[in-house]
């Protein structure tokens, strides 16, 4: 081991070479198993931390960097691994559950540290995302995770990004200490509702997630208020907390899912809620979708769009989803859906409307809205100018007025409008939703 990971620079001897080949093969096998088991955690964000390099190696880029993308199109920013996939729990949706027939492996502390450092130094990654199956008990697992992040920060003088899982049930002292070294911490809700969770993971409940989320959130606030008085207060989880829900494993509605997300954003100041379309895993419970069922990718995307509307577009949840309208449209995005249900709001005159009104026009985002507001100070905007700004003109045209838009009498027929928009816009989802159907016939 020490041969491979030492900073010693000299060629290997033949014997060493043979010995090292064996070590490499074992580590590669562990990496294969423990990266494969960690990949269903979708968060790969490396943003939000401003940790600076103080004489060691690495810093955190505030905007985050995706170093590559896998063939499923997901970003690879962090080395995302489990410390081990041994687990005492038996959650039906999880590939590493106790009863699952998968190969088990465990990294040593040194192995995780050296993989992280060697990948980081070659600019492969922004940092480490470390999670783990629960072996023995929560404290034992958390203590081992803590040992890794401490070694990275204190011995390797590593200042890159670290996303650490909070292990539900771990003691507050351990969680608090870990927060001093991690940039982000997270705990997954797993299923959006308590009933769903009880169904597939009887040993777990939402309270064991809420408690540590609240504890970390309160500690973040304490550190922040201390920093207002004492400048050299250490940082504590500077990139905040996040959580994840599995979508499509149990029959919750979009309204139920987004209500939970909305509540968690408000109560625990979460930076992100992730929605992870359920990918059936081997030999799982009959309660869950069968193997071979396509993950609900379109639905997942619509939920993220709704999430964005809540966080950045000043929409209220009940405008997008409510008990009467409890599922998002799959064929159109939620902002367009809202617009079609609210014809009285339109058309919006881009030459006079305020920012918050303009961003409600389907096809116009926040950047374009800012450009419109700056540009109109120089004169009335015409359609040809809007087209060039980079908005989705084909969608936006029906909902806005420019200075040269011909006057329209009465309200347009929204059902007709929808089919017209769907006809003229070539959405990437048309082929995706068809794909699922076509396989039936091919």
């Amino acid at each position, binding site marked *: 081991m020490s041969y491979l990971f030492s900073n010693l620079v000299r060629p290997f001897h033949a014997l060493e*070479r043979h010995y090292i080949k064996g070590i490499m093969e074992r580590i590669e096998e562990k990496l294969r198993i423990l990266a494969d088991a960690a990949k269903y955690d979708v968060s790969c964000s490396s943003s939000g931390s401003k940790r600076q390099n103080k004489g060691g190696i690495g810093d955190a880029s505030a905007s985050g960097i995706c*170093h590559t993308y*896998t063939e499923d199109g*997901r970003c690879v920013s962090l080395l995302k691994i489990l410390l081990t996939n041994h687990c005492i729990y038996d959650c039906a949706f999880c590939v590493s559950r106790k009863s699952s027939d998968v190969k088990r492996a465990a990294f040593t502390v040194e192995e995780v540290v050296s993989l992280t450092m060697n990948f980081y*130094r070659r600019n492969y990654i922004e940092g480490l995302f470390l999670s783990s199956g629960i072996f023995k008990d929560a404290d034992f697992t958390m203590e081992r995770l803590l040992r890794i992040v401490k070694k990275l920060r204190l011995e390797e003088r590593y200042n890159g990004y670290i996303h650490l899982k909070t292990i539900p049930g771990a003691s507050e002292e351990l969680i608090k200490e870990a927060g001093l070294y991690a940039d982000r911490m997270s705990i997954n809700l797993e299923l959006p509702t308590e009933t769903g969770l009880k169904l597939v993971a009887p040993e777990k409940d939402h309270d064991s997630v809420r408690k540590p989320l609240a504890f970390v959130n309160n500690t973040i606030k304490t550190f922040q208020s201390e920093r207002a008085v004492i400048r050299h207060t250490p940082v504590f989880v500077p990139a905040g907390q996040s959580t994840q829900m599995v979508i499509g494993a149990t029959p919750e509605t979009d309204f139920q899912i987004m209500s939970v997300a909305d509540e968690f954003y408000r109560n625990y100041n979460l930076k992100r809620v992730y929605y992870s379309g359920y990918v059936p895993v081997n030999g799982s419970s009959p309660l869950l979708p069968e193997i071979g069922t396509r993950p609900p990718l379109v639905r997942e995307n619509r939920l993220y769009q709704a999430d964005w509307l809540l966080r950045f577009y000043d929409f209220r949840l009940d405008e997008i989803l409510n008990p009467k309208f409890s599922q998002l449209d799959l064929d159109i995005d939620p902002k367009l859906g809202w617009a079609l249900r609210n014809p009285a709001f339109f058309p919006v005159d881009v030459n006079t409307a305020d920012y918050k009104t303009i961003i409600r026009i389907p096809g116009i985002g926040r950047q374009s809205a800012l450009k419109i507001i700056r540009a109109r100070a120089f004169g009335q905007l015409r359609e040809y*100018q809007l087209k060039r700004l980079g908005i989705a003109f084909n969608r936006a045209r029906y909902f806005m007025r420019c200075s040269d838009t011909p006057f329209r009498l009465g309200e347009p027929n929204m059902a007709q409008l929808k089919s017209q928009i769907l006809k003229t816009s070539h959405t990437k989802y048309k082929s995706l939703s068809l794909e699922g159907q076509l396989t039936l016939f091919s």
Partner: protein
Amino acid sequence: MTVYVYDGTYYGFLCCIFECFEMKEWHAVPVSESVHQSSFFDSQRIITTDASKAERVLNGLQQRIGKSRASDFFRVFLSEDPRALTAAFRLLVALFRGNGNILENYGNDDVLYVAQTLKKVSRERHRMKAFIRFSKSSDGLFFALVEPDFNVLPLIASFFARRYADQNWLIYDVKRNYGIYYDKLTVVEVQLDINIRKQFETTQVKVAADERNAHFEQLWKQYFKSTNIEERRNMKLHMQHVPKRYWKYLVEKQP
């Protein structure tokens, strides 16, 4: 139309602005000597680069629009796109002639084109922060070869110096034949001699790499494969995020 032929540097470009105001030639067009072809109809003049003149222009610009937006012009300049340079030149002339807030007028073609170019350059800068892959050589140097679409090495030097402060590194732009080298103190511009450059075309440069380096490259490839979810395969999205032209230097995309 008057054509200003300058030496291809940013300072040379700024000297064209100086000349334009000195001679009151508001419709002059700057052309880099490397791409310049003399035309029968245009009058042309060679502009000599004078650092003090360029700095006067730069200071004036910073005073008018602030340091950060002034540096946007440098970024646009690094695009090496003649149309963007001409548009930027016209905007600079307008700015100095008192049209202070012209940069916000996105209805204007020049403003829009410059803004779009700026975005492209910034995106390439970001990509280089992401896609650079260092190999560790036997003498401890971390080196990387790149061929960015735009000349963005000047924009990423400080980022890499801050991040990899405790290792020697070299990032070499194969297309433009220069690199930036960091010796744990400062970043300097370097040019490799022809014999070393020839090795880039073969795989000889790999030989100098540390033996352990190959092991970590193998581990990285394994990780890249294992973290992919086959059921969600979406090659179109993959290609959109990692365009093919970057694959050449990406470890994980090597067979």
